[in-house]
């Protein structure tokens, strides 16, 4: 994943065209969720090609489909759906994974990652400018992870809080900056300290994003996210 705008635009175009492989699609789904420029490129290609949709002939679906939809609606009228593009993008990926071990309800209840800066370790904390928290949540539920960033050491401590790992898979933590995810390793059930990429600008709110994807046991075989992103959060000033 280079930051070359033309290369990114062609990837966005192939995404809309549908010619990317499953893993390339998953990587672009992540990029879309975290990088507004990629999302804009995808939307622009959808607009360019959408006139071709007019050529498609309608086919009446069987009546049973509507009944199945009714049964599958999560929550029905109980609560208003999420109203945020990023949540929408993430929850789209979550639903891709619905066939796996997790239920949609379990995910919805813990769609959050808290990222905090300077929350651990011995060094004194300067209250005014070193505490940041990011929450992506469907409605104030318990966060999935707490990620504490120690700038001096260049490390982050990852503490699972409400996260659930789908059976037979691993959760992998990514640090995404400029649309390029770098792995911080597989995260397990207990707290772990991981090294941040040397050039990470995590100290700057909005500069980088932490995301968690579902991967095969032991982590992504490709060095890029291959499964759906189920949690993400950016640093914002606390």
């Amino acid at each position, binding site marked *: 994943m280079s930051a070359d705008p*033309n290369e990114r*635009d*062609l990837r966005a*175009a*192939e995404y*809309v*065209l*549908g*010619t*990317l*492989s*499953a893993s390339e*699609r998953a990587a672009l789904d992540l990029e879309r969720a975290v990088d507004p420029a990629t999302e804009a490129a995808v*939307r622009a290609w*959808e*607009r*360019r*090609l*959408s*006139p*071709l*949709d*007019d*050529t*498609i*002939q*309608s*086919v*009446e*679906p*069987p009546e*049973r*489909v*509507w009944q*199945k*939809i*009714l049964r*599958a*609606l*999560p929550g*029905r*009228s*109980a*609560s*208003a*759906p*999420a*109203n*945020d*593009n990023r*949540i*929408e993008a993430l*929850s*789209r990926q979550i*639903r*891709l994974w619905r066939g796996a071990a997790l239920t949609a309800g379990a995910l919805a209840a813990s769609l959050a990652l808290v990222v905090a800066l300077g929350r651990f370790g011995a060094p004194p904390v300067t209250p005014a400018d070193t505490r940041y928290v990011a929450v992506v949540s469907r409605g104030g539920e318990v966060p999935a992870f707490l990620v504490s960033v120690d700038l001096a050491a260049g490390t982050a401590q990852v503490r699972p809080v409400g996260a659930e790992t789908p059976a037979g898979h691993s959760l992998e933590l990514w640090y995404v900056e400029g649309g390029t995810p770098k792995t911080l390793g597989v995260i397990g059930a207990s707290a772990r300290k991981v090294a941040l990429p040397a050039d990470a600008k995590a100290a700057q709110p909005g500069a980088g994003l932490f995301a968690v994807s579902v991967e095969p046991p032991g982590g992504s075989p490709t060095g890029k996210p291959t499964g759906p992103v189920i949690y993400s959060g950016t640093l914002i000033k606390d």
Partner: protein
Amino acid sequence: MNRPVRDDATLSRLLAGIASGDEQALKSLYDLTAPKLYGLILRIQRDRSAAEDVLQDVFVRVWQAAGSYDPASGRPLAWLCAIARNRAIDVVRRKGEVQGPVTEDGEDWVERLADPHDSEGAILGRDALKACLGRLEAAQRDCVVLAYCEGYSREELASRYDKPVNTIKTWLHRGLATLRGCLETAA
């Protein structure tokens, strides 16, 4: 095209209703758009049972994501079609499924780029796309159109044209870059 009330204002209103949890609005949207979306999905996922599952998933998604629809970013039917296409493509790519033979080539799709029952803006967009597709080399145009309309993968296109996958990728990239340049000039 026998559903005359499927205009942007109606669809946008229904999406707003769905965003606030109105199940009846979802049913109305389903009645208006499901045949179109099912037709779209079937072009990509030709197994009817699997296509029904995709259609179901699309409307569950719409139920959850209607609040994120932004009229500024495009027309409501295009937003729905993008969801349906993405879901259908995700499913066939994940399965690594090779689809059966198609009955049409890219030209047929381009020829059909005309529909009198639409707004002036939509016609302009369609004319521009048709004109710009017409400027592509035939093989590049067919690859672009067959991928978009029929869900062809790079590998399936390579097999159809008896070319290496990398050649197909080059064709696609050249075709898409030309298309983008042409549409930007037209706009």
